[in-house]
Every structure is written in structure tokens, then in C-alpha cells.
């Protein structure tokens, strides 16, 4: 038993719903109580879908329990077929139905429906949403796809995009264009937009582009083995990753990796004078493993940030993230405990968070700017405008998204120069944001006037504390931390203005 306040992932059947809702002509019959129908609103509200997810819930009640929930399931399944006439049906149980052990797969089989019926075994008490999506897509592919003659022209499938995915809609479009530039046709995109008959012809493609390992790795491996389709290992998010991806595709297809990159702006935007203020910004990165890996590379190599810590909530990729942490020389946090993530952020006091909507809330509380890089999604993650993450346009979008929460370069200097001016005072915040003010990091961390360090009893003298306040808020946390570290290393137990500036000199690079 584990006390959970907020969750990064839903239960595995929600993952199955993401696959079913992304597809066309597929129906999901889910053995579940009525309350589980809440999951529909994730799709209709967050993603603004104007159709109900193709899911029939049995909505059994307590009074059905001892008697005949199995019968209820069969009726629901038959009615769903009669009403929606899908090309294929997936059947499964939610957490409660798993306990009553009705065997939806076996029951559905007895109906003798004239279409493929694919049973799902999703262990609700062990696994989570991403596993559910990955396993569901894998089962659908395994049941429907067959080896086939390859297309005359070089082609691939794009696999991984689902309903309720972070920017999947636009990633598909950007990636399709990128591949087209290279001379690669897209055979099928799946699960998003594919019908069961599209799945059946996935074997025609020469290779697979594994866009999101979270939701399609099992299928990619199966297709590699059974359909003879290699799959790409690099997710093309960021400039370097996109170029690596193109090279990978070139190696598979013998086509040229040269494509038109005249719309790519990130490199110059990062190199221009205004972006000097980005250099060395300490960022903490947290989300799903795929987006964290990509973001860490962009942050370090393409924005000039300093990565202060990384982490992911999906344990399946713990090893990858730990390896990356080692390479970056930082700790990696593998956790789906929101409070633990908050503690780590508080401890690291980064100048910026690249995280999920959950970290956005943490950032709000701690007064640290945050840009969202990964699911779990929120209605804000479905913008009306085109905003992919992959490819060259994706890199441009990421640059804009990440600097949006920050005070801009020249503005940062003005704030510093005119910090006592009412227009530029510390709490005014970036001028392009209305309304809310970032909180003072130092004040948030220590409400008391006098600061006691846990170990060495170091206190801030009044004058030093006033001086600390003069440092712009967005670097104050770092200055404070460094000074305290410096003081305790030197065995000093009172921080004066002198100590502050000695520490500054000490840490100046």
C-alpha cells in the first residue's frame, strides 16, 4: 500500500484507451464500474476531442457482483459490436474487474463475433498507463500484422503516437515532412490515425520509426523479429538528435541524410547576444524518459544550460536515465512520488525547471520558472497552433517554449541596474507575463530573518542579508547557497557582507 497524492500515470487500462481512442475502427470493451467512465473526460476535455472515446464500459454494480457480471460483459460486448460495427475489438478489465476474474477474453470469444477480438492482460496492481499503451499496441500489432512484400519505394511506419500524447499530433506532421525530404514514404502511422486494416499492412514498410519508446517499443521489437523491420533508436527531438536520426535513417535506407534545414533557427537564436543570459542557467529536468533524454541534450549542448539534475517517473526506463545522469555527472531521480520530486527541487534550487504540469505547480510554489516538456498532459498542452517537438521546427518551438518563462536577456540587465525602481523591482517578473509574480526564492526558502544552517549554525548578519536582497531574485538562491557552503567550508559561522563577496569571488569562473 502506498499513499499517493498526485499521479504521473493513470492505470494501465487508460493506456489501452489512449491506443483505442487514437485509432479508427477499433472498439474497446472494458469490464469496469461506472466511476471508471471518468477517463472519457481526459480525452474529451483535455484533448478537446469532439467524439466519445470508442469505449464501452460494463458499469457493473454491487448488486451484480454475486450474480452475473460475466453475462453483463457478454451483453455489453455484443451490443458494442452491433452498434459500432468496428473492424476489431479489444477487451479487458479495469482494476476492479481484474479482482472478480471474469476473463473478458474468453467470454468475448464465446460470442463468435466475425471480427478479430484481441484480449488484453494488463496487471492493474503492478503496472501503469505507459505499460498499458505499449502492451495494447503490441497485442494489436501481433494479432493483425503479417509479413508482406515491401513497398517498391522506400517506406517506413511511424509508431508510438497515441491519443492524449504530448504534442503527438504535430510531431507526426513534422516527422512525415522530414522523412519525405529524405525520400522516405510513410506507410502507416500507428496507433494514432490507424485502423485495424492499416495495422494489417504495416509489414509493407521497410523499417519502423520508433517515435515514442514508452508506447511502442514492444511492438517495434516484435516487428523487427517477425516482419524483418529494423527500427530507429534515436528520437529526433533537438537539433543534434534530429541529425543523428537522419544519419540512422540514411544507414538503413542508403538515402542521403541531407535535408533542407533552412527553417532551423535554434542554433543562431542560442548564439545571438541576447541568449548570453541563458549560459550556465541551472536546470532540473523531469518527465517521461524519452523527453528527459532529449531535453538534457538540448539543454546542455544547444542552449548552454547547466543540467543540475534529471529524473523520470517511468521506472521502465530507469537504467537509461541513470546512465545519462552519470554521463552528465548529476544525480538521477527515478520516482513517481510527487512530494519526493518537490523535495529534490527544493534542495537543488535550480534556476529553471523543465518538467511536466506537476513540476509547473511545484515551480509556481517555489517561484522557479518552469517550461513543460512531457506528459502527463493538461489542456494547455494542446495548443491550437502548430507546435511539434521533433525535427527542426520542433527545435525552434522548444527554444521559444523554454525561454518563455524566463526574464529575457536585456531585461535581466535592466532589472539588475534598476532594481530599486518600482517598475523593475524584484517581484515584477518577466514583462511579457501578466498577473502573477514569481516568489522570492530566498524568502520562500527562509521565512525567518536570521538563517540557521542545520549543521554549522551559520547566521546571516543583517547587512549581509540586505546585500543578498540586492542580488536579482533569479540568481539569489544560487548566491545564498554558495555563500553558505563557502562559509561552512571555511568554518565561518557568521556571514557578513565580506563573506558574501569572498564567496562570490571563490565561485567566479
Amino acid at each position, binding site marked *: 500500500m502506498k499513499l499517493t497524492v498526485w499521479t504521473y500515470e493513470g492505470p494501465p487500462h487508460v493506456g489501452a484507451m489512449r491506443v483505442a481512442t487514437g485509432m479508427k475502427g477499433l472498439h474497446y470493451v472494458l469490464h469496469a464500474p461506472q466511476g471508471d467512465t471518468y477517463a472519457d473526460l481526459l480525452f474529451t476535455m483535455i484533448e478537446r476531442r469532439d467524439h466519445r472515446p470508442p469505449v464501452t464500459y460494463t*458499469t457493473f454494480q454491487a448488486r451484480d457482483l454475486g450474480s452475473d457480471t460475466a453475462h453483463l460483459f457478454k451483453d455489453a460486448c455484443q451490443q458494442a459490436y452491433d452498434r459500432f460495427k468496428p473492424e476489431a475489438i479489444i477487451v479487458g478489465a479495469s482494476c476492479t474487474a481484474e479482482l472478480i476474474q471474469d476473463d473478458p477474453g474468453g467470454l468475448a470469444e464465446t460470442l463468435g463475433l466475425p471480427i478479430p477480438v484481441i484480449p488484453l492482460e494488463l496487471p492493474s496492481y503492478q503496472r501503469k498507463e505507459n505499460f498499458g499503451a505499449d502492451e495494447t499496441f503490441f497485442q494489436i500489432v501481433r494479432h493483425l500484422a503479417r509479413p508482406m512484400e515491401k513497398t517498391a519505394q522506400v517506406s517506413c511506419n511511424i509508431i508510438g503516437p497515441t491519443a492524449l500524447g504530448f504534442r503527438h499530433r504535430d510531431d507526426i506532421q513534422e516527422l512525415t515532412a522530414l522523412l519525405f525530404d529524405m525520400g522516405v514514404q510513410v506507410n502507416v502511422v500507428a496507433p494514432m490515425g490507424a485502423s485495424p486494416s492499416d495495422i494489417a499492412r504495416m509489414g509493407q514498410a521497410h523499417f519502423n520509426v520508433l517515435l515514442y519508446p514508452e508506447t511502442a517499443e514492444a511492438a517495434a521489437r516484435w516487428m523487427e523479429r517477425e516482419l524483418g523491420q529494423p527500427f530507429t533508436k534515436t528520437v529526433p527531438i533537438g537539433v543534434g538528435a534530429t541529425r543523428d536520426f537522419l544519419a540512422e535513417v540514411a544507414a538503413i535506407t542508403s538515402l542521403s541524410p541531407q535535408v533542407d534545414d533552412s527553417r532551423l533557427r535554434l542554433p543562431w537564436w542560442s548564439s545571438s547576444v541576447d541568449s548570453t543570459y541563458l549560459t550556465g542557467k541551472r536546470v532540473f529536468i523531469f518527465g517521461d524518459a524519452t523527453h528527459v533524454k532529449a531535453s538534457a541534450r538540448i539543454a546542455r549542448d544547444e542552449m548552454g544550460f547547466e543540467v543540475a539534475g534529471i529524473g523520470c517517473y517511468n521506472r521502465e526506463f530507469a537504467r537509461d536515465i541513470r546512465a545519462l545522469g552519470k554521463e552528465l555527472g548529476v544525480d538521477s531521480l527515478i520516482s513517481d512520488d510527487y512530494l519526493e520530486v518537490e523535495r529534490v527541487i527544493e534542495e537543488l534550487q535550480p534556476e529553471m525547471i523543465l518538467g511536466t504540469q506537476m513540476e509547473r505547480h511545484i515551480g509556481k510554489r517555489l517561484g522557479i520558472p518552469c517550461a513543460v516538456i512531457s506528459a502527463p498532459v493538461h489542456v494547455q498542452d494542446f495548443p491550437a497552433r502548430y507546435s511539434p517537438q521533433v525535427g527542426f521546427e520542433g527545435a525552434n518551438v522548444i527554444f521559444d517554449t523554454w525561454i518563455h518563462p524566463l526574464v529575457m536577456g536585456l531585461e535581466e540587465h535592466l532589472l539588475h541596474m534598476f532594481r530599486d525602481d518600482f517598475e523593475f523591482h524584484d517581484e515584477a517578473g518577466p514583462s511579457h507575463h501578466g498577473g502573477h509574480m514569481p516568489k522570492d526564492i530566498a524568502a520562500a526558502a527562509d521565512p525567518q530573518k536570521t538563517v540557521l544552517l542545520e549543521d554549522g549554525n551559520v547566521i546571516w548578519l543583517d547587512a549581509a542579508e540586505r546585500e543578498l536582497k540586492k542580488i536579482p531574485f533569479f540568481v539569489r538562491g544560487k548566491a545564498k547557497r554558495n555563500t553558505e557552503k563557502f562559509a561552512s567550508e571555511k568554518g565561518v559561522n557568521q556571514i557578513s557582507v565580506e563573506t558574501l563577496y569572498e564567496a562570490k569571488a571563490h565561485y567566479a569562473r
Partner: protein
Amino acid sequence: MNDQAPITGCADTPVLKERGQREVFCGLTGIIWLHRKMQDAFFLVVGSRTCAHLLQSAAGVMIFAEPRFGTAILEEKDLAGLVDANDELDREVARLLARRPDIKQLFLVGSCPSEVIKLDLARAAERLSEIHAPDVRVINFSGSGIETTFTQGEDACLAALVPQLPATDARELLLVGALPDVVEDQAMQLLSDMRLNNIRVLPAGRVTDETAVGPNTVFALTQPFLGDTHAALIRRGARHIAAPFPFGEEGTTAWLRAIADEFDVDQDTFDRVTAAPRARARKAIQAQAAVLNGKSIFFFPDSQLEIPLARFLTRECGMQALEVGAPYIHRDLVGHDLDLLPAGPVISEGQDVDMQLDRCRAAHPDLTVCGLGLANPLEGEGLSTKWAIELVFTPVHFYEQAGDLAGLFARPLRRKSLLTGFHPNMQAAE
């Protein structure tokens, strides 16, 4: 108020009973508003990842770093042995209470999984109450989807509180139902202006403010979904003041009148206290009724407020009800509202969502009241919708909110008229 009373109400209309797929939240959802109301309480759901995800999705956003609710998620090993599950629960509770000394009452909330594996949370609550007395009392209720729909969770919670209330012989009025403070204060003001004292509320904001109950207690319900609480109070000897629910000018007046009669408030006093707010309410409704008048409305079963709201919207705003669906109909509670609702609409109980969608499309109402899962799909088909969940999150009771309540229904219609010809799926119709 009775000048437009219909010749026949809906009391004798045969009810269309449906038993099919439901599209309604479970009772756990009530925690979202209950935890705001009861400031020293923590709601610990003993359930699955699904339950945690439901709470998070229904709450919409994460409002607090650490809210006063959470889910103890059952894991494989808890399912294997119930002894272990109880030990685990005790450990989680001890840890929680150590971290949150502000918690004075802990609700152990049952879910579908905890009920199916027969984890006895009532016993667990007794055991934990003993361990943590006198600082914290531990109470159990069920919000499971196999037992409760949506607002029934509040009913289950309040019904579980009733046996805990101390006894009294005092003649007291008890207002029952978790209302936003602003609304509750208005009701208290109106009643105290009629020189009624000794008014208590259930649930109280804090355990220390808690009411007592006994044979001289009379109670009025402010929400129509409190059937079990109603029964539990009657078991304690209290008496129910039946009335229409206090939505709109007419409903509020009738509700207040029933209480005033119980306490022998004379007509002059009643009129003096209510005249000004009644006039304000009428005027505020008028402004919205211009949009609503003559428009048809279709209710999917959801919050259980459907029947009283249909009564308000038809009688005070001039709307025409086509179907009024409710998850279940408790005549002791909504009988007065049914009597007043002009005959005509289909009255349905329970749900078969696909069949009901067929009826809704065929009826093509001007406005459809439904859950969040159905709203955008229906908007996509060109129907205007009002989400039912907003009705339980927003202050809508009594005089001063009557205009706002009508406004909730008028806004989607106003939007539709502003965006005429703009709907992407409705171009052909223009």
C-alpha cells in the same frame, strides 16, 4: 409564487427506468468539495491507481502541494493477504497523522477494489480510532463506484457522521449539506433575521464546531442527494422539514417558508426578511431568462440536482424540459419538486447511455446538461451543453445566487448565438 402552478405536475408521470451503461462519476468525486468544507479532515481513499487518477482528473488541477486527500493504492501483496493489508493501512495512517498534526478527523473511504476484496474498513476505522484517540477520530464510508454515483459520496460521508454526533434534547434546526461558505452564511443570515437561533450545520467546518442531534432536532436538506443522511437522522429521532430545494426565487422561498412554518414565524416577519432578496433574485433571473425563455432542455443523469433544477428552469426561466434523467429518484426528497415540475418531460431513472444519446439527438434540445465525458462530443454535433459538475462546484443556492444559476445555463446559449455560423461542424446547416 403559485400563480403559474401547473394543473398537473410530474408526480404521477411514469418513470422510464434504465439499466445499461452509465456515464457517471463514482462517489469518490465528492471528496473534491468535501475536503474544502471540512478543514480539519483528511480523506484517505483505500483503492487503486484508478481511484487516485479519478480524483486527480475530477479535481482538474493540482491546487495544493499536499491536499487533504490521498489514495492508499493497493498493491499486489495487499491483495494476497488481508492481514497484511490491515497492517499496511495502519502504518500508512500512522505516518500520515504524524506528518499532519492538523488532521482531527480521518475518513477511510472505501472503493470498488477495497469492497471486492472485502477489506473491512469499518473495523479498521474502529481500530484506528482507538489507536489515535483522542486526537483524531477515524470514520469510514464508501465512495465506491459499485455502490455510489457521484454526489452519493457526500451522502455516504454525512450519513457516516450522524451516528457519531452527540445527543441533545434541545430544539434545534439543522441544515444538512456541504455548501460553499458564502451560501451557507446567506442562509444563516436569512434565518436569523427571522429570529431563528440555534441553527447548526452538517457537515461542520471543524470537528469542534460539531452539532448534536436528538428527538427535538428538525432538519432541512440543502441538497437533493442526501437520502441516506436523511434516514440516519430520522433514526436519531430528528424530523425532516420537507420542501422544494432552495434553487431560484421560488424554491428558496418555499424552502424558507417550510422552516418558518415549523418555527411559527409570522407572515409579516417572513415578508420583511425575504421581500428585498426575493425582488433582487427575480430581477437577476429576469435578465437571464430572456435568453432561456422558450428554449428546450435535456438532462442526462449526473449530479442528482436534475429534478429541482428542471423545476427552476421551467417555472422561473420559461424553459421547456424534454427529458429529466436522474441516477435514482428518492421521492421523500424530491417529491415537492416533482409536484411542481410541469408535466411533459420524460422522467428517467438510471441510464443506458447510448440509448439516451439516441433520444437526445432525436429530441435535439437547445441545451443539454451532461457530464464532462459527453459535453464536447455533443457540442461537436452542434448541441449546446452545460456540464453538470459545475453545478456542484459553484455557489448556486438561495436568492443571491439565483441569477448566477440561471446564468450558468444561459451562457452556452449566448455563446452559440454569438458564434453563429462559426461552428466547424455546422457549416452545412448555415
